């Protein structure tokens, strides 16, 4: 698999050099692999940190900035960062108001953040609350698995909880908003191709030209089911069928509809998908209040997409619309 890299072993540190050069408003700790807001710790507000393996860009580093995350811990490709990083980031963003850990539900991320929270309790006086996201409806059998995975909702949650923190709300209030977002969001993804971890150099799984993998996570892991390749319309129906049976999205103040690219699918196709998604939602009586279309939580160069619906109320919408200034999301500022 062809890659635009120098050495597989240097991909993450060299990309961080690029992030630092392109975004002087951020501060990058290259040794510990942490991306901070330039003014961290932002005074008088709850600090928000997240983190995860690399390969999902812009998640999470691209969401560091005013109105969103205060720091992102960067792991190796598809590998959770380590507790030392989360502990250091927690110290670096705390202004006395406490720190929220936003954790996607993957065993590695959960265990490392858990150890970091234990270390923070043992070694610092910082209040830490963790919110685990688990919005992937592809995982039906939570009893016999590690539970639903954290996918697209993380993007929306970081934006909305970030706005709540920016308003000066307390740690417990920001955590409540974050939990509400997770509880009201559902996602489902699919892949047209696999992806290749730089160190491995070859695709993680084989996917023939005539087939697609439905119910994927974000790590190039195979999904729930392999199906014959279908049209955008059929794919949208399949993904939304799974999402809409899982939570009642009709009525109320509507939804934020998020069509996400997995990294290798052009915006042109994502907009084809978005059109199919809103057509289905209209028929289902679901009002679309806001949209987000683009590659925001990716799996390297995987082709494919995911759809996330977040049921919103006035307050969540207002927080979504609040100003944000990060490398990947920027409005109102």
């Amino acid at each position: 698999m062809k890659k635009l890299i120098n050495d597989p072993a240097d991909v993450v540190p060299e990309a961080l050099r690029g992030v630092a050069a392109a975004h002087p408003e951020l501060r990058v700790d290259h040794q510990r692999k942490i991306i901070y807001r330039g003014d961290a710790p932002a005074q008088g507000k709850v600090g928000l940190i997240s983190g995860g393996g690399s390969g999902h860009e812009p998640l999470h580093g691209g969401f560091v900035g005013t109105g969103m995350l205060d720091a992102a811990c960067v792991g190796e490709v598809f590998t959770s960062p380590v507790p030392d990083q989360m502990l250091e980031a927690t110290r670096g963003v705390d202004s006395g108001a406490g720190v929220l850990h936003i954790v996607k539900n993957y065993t590695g991320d959960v265990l490392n953040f858990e150890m970091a929270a234990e270390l923070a309790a043992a070694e610092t006086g910082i209040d830490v609350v963790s919110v685990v996201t688990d919005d992937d409806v592809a995982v039906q059998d939570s009893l016999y698995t590690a539970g639903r995975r954290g996918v697209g909702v993380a993007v929306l949650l970081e934006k909305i909880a970030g706005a709540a923190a920016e308003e000066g709300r307390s740690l417990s209030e920001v955590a409540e908003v974050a939990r509400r977002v997770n509880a009201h969001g559902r996602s489902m993804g699919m892949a047209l191709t696999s992806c290749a971890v730089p160190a491995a150099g070859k695709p993680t799984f084989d996917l023939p030209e005539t087939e697609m993998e439905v119910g994927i996570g974000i790590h190039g892991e195979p999904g729930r089911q392999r199906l014959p390749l279908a049209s955008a319309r059929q794919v949208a129906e399949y993904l939304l069928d799974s999402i809409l049976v899982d939570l009642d999205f009709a009525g109320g103040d509507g939804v934020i509809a998020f069509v996400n690219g997995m990294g290798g699918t052009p915006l042109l196709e994502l907009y084809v998908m978005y059109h199919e998604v809103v057509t289905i939602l209209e028929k289902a009586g679901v009002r679309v209040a806001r949209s987000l279309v683009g590659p925001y939580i990716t799996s390297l160069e995987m082709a494919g997409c995911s759809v996330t619906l977040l049921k919103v109320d006035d307050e969540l919408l207002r927080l979504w619309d609040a100003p944000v200034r990060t490398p990947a999301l920027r409005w109102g500022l």
Partner: protein
Amino acid sequence: MTAQVDVEALDRWIREFAGLVAVNKDLLTQLDSAIGDADHGANMDRGMTAVVAALNGTTSASVAALLKQVGMTLVSTVGGASGPLYGTFFLRMATASGEVTTLDGPAFATALRAGLEGVVARGKAEAGDKTMYDALAPAVEALGSALAAAVPLGEALRGATRAAEGGRDATTPMRARKGRASYLGERSVGHQDPGATSSALLIAAAAAALAQS
């Protein structure tokens, strides 16, 4: 005379494990690419290389100090689920061993059991979930009962290795219920678990390094 496991012997065990991980790095990654995310070999090798570097730089005054250093280094360098799980294993072994300079066979077995209990507390795995537990638990069990029957440590560790390898092989037909492999459901059946494979190497390393203790 009862066999003794001193700080030097534990140091040999860890280095032996690092060597086995390096040799089997590609195998571990290949097993992980079938049911996980293709990084177990690279992550464990990075961690054990860092552990060996840390051991080269310091002299541990006690069994607990050495095991704690191994655990902390793994937690800080491995990432993924393996970092906290292997890290917790060695940290709990350290706590169970205490500030002594040697362990006799039964004390070593007790420390291993404490490590296993740490893995369970951290990862919540049970027998048959297709995890490292499935290799470690039979090994700890076999070692304990062999030593209780007055089998010499070296021979008991060889028995524990066979138990670990049996447990590792038994993961192949299992359906994963923990970690990333669990999302595959039935499709995880027929693949050997990478974590159980590295755990079997850990026990084999003990047999190789401590047999002469």
